[in-house]
């Protein structure tokens, strides 16, 4: 379980909080989508959960334990992280990218190799083909898959993903997000995924948290958000998929 309590972040020299105060509970096994406009503090929130950013106030608890007293390195090993910019290391093969943490932890070599192949299969990249590739030899979607595999390498129980499907075509996006849902369930993860795409959030997540200007505006299932949006902003956000579907239907209906 991930729990944020009155979590706040104000960056140096800023005149207002980038995040918070924010209260949020993500129960074990949940897949939560974090949505909100650009600059609303989604990335900052994720970064505070693995201590890449230290909060200005408030606390983060994982399985009931305040992470501020934990060793950041050990903490991060238990959390898979996929960065907004993917962040595969350009000068390392796919296998090295995935294996870097286990190898630095000195897992036995054959175990690492088996883990790499297992993870590549899990994300549907043929190990024989992709193991030795360099990141620049992959398509955007394949890179994303490799980044997933890397995030899973140290057997985390939590996954934090910052717009992992950002730069992909809609088909690949759908495919990957459905696959991630499967992986999430299979491995029993607790996950937070940041996305801009409301449709994706509806289809993928158990609950959706809407952020604006650093604060949580509403959290609930897709059904709850649609039925009873907290304010005009949420109403607009959650109506987006339907509005677009309607616009599409109109466009298709019109003579060509």
């Amino acid at each position, binding site marked *: 379980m991930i729990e944020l309590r009155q979590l706040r972040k104000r960056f140096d020299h800023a005149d207002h909080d980038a995040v918070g105060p924010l209260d949020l509970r993500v129960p074990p096994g949940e897949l939560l989508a974090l949505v909100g406009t650009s600059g609303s503090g989604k990335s900052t929130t994720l970064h505070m959960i*693995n201590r*890449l950013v230290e909060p200005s106030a408030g606390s983060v608890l994982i399985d009931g334990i305040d992470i501020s007293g934990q060793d*950041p*390195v*050990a*903490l*991060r*090993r*238990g*959390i898979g*992280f996929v*960065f907004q910019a993917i*962040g595969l*290391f*350009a*000068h*390392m093969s796919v296998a*090295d990218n995935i*294996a*870097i*943490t286990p*190898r*630095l932890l000195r897992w036995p070599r054959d175990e690492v190799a088996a883990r790499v192949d297992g993870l590549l299969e899990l994300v549907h990249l043929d190990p024989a083909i992709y193991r030795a590739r360099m990141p620049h030899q992959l398509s955007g979607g394949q890179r994303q898959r490799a980044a997933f595999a*890397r*995030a899973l*390498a*140290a057997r985390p129980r939590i996954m934090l993903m910052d717009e992992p499907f950002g730069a992909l075509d809609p088909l690949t996006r759908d495919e990957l997000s459905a696959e991630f849902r499967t992986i999430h369930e299979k491995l029993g993860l607790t996950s937070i995924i940041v996305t801009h795409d409301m449709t994706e959030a509806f289809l993928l997540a158990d609950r959706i948290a809407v952020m604006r200007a650093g604060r949580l505006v509403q959290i609930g299932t897709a059904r709850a958000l649609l039925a009873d949006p907290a304010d005009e902003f949420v109403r607009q956000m959650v109506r987006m998929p339907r509005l677009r579907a309607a616009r599409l239907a109109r466009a298709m209906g019109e003579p060509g």
Partner: protein
Amino acid sequence: MSLDPRLVMSSVIFGLSIGGIYFLLAIGLSLCFGLMRIISLDQLLYYSIGAFVTYSVGVATGQFWLGVAAGAAAGGLASLAVERLIFRRIYARDPTFSMITSFGLLFGGIGIIKFVWGVVPRPVEVPTLAQFDVLGTQIPVYRLIIVGIAVVVYALIWAFLHRTIVGKAIRAAIENVEHVEGLGINVGRLFTLTFVIAGALSGLAGGVYAPLILVDPMMGLEMLAFVFMVVIIGGLGSIKGTAISALIIGQVVSLGSLIYAPAAQMAPFVIMLAILLIRPTGLFGVALTRR
């Protein structure tokens, strides 16, 4: 103006050996900056420490190479202590802050050296006086040994950074430290290791260069400007760039003094300015402002 080809030959070798020393010193500065955004002028202190330890061990045991090994070890240990006690606390600060801090360390350290070894320059005996005939020119073998050491260090550092997982992680962290941290990798350990390697190479540089100069407390300061230029020209965080620029500056210094002595002091600065005008990041480096 005509130059005696034999003079040119020995000057080229001289340039290669001084370039090798520049390289050993600059590589540490360059890696420290690339990885930690620390401008580690205190490397010049470990250079002096390496030379003095080489001197003292040599006097005590009569073993020059044992002294060099001890000098490199002393450089590594000194930089380990400085990393743990001081730099660890200022990583989050601006690079200029680290530059001021390391400058302070350099001067403080020079004081300590004066206290321990005194101010009288110390001679270190050249381990071999053998000469080597190249096209009728007598070349001291020891200068070639220095070049050889620099080449071996280059190869080892290259292999470390490209072939081992720890080295690859260091390169990854030079690329983007946050992405490495986010994976649960202990970047603090990578920082310490890089710092110790840098300090040991600086100590090694001081040790191997000691027989060709007089070992005195200020010797680091004499190197400072040249090493700094090598790092800037090569580009921060790039070993290849550092090696090439050490070669260039070595030749400029030695051929410069052959052609017109006052130019030897000026020419490297002119070259540095020219390169920075064309490529502000140096030959191969990363931009100062990233991260």
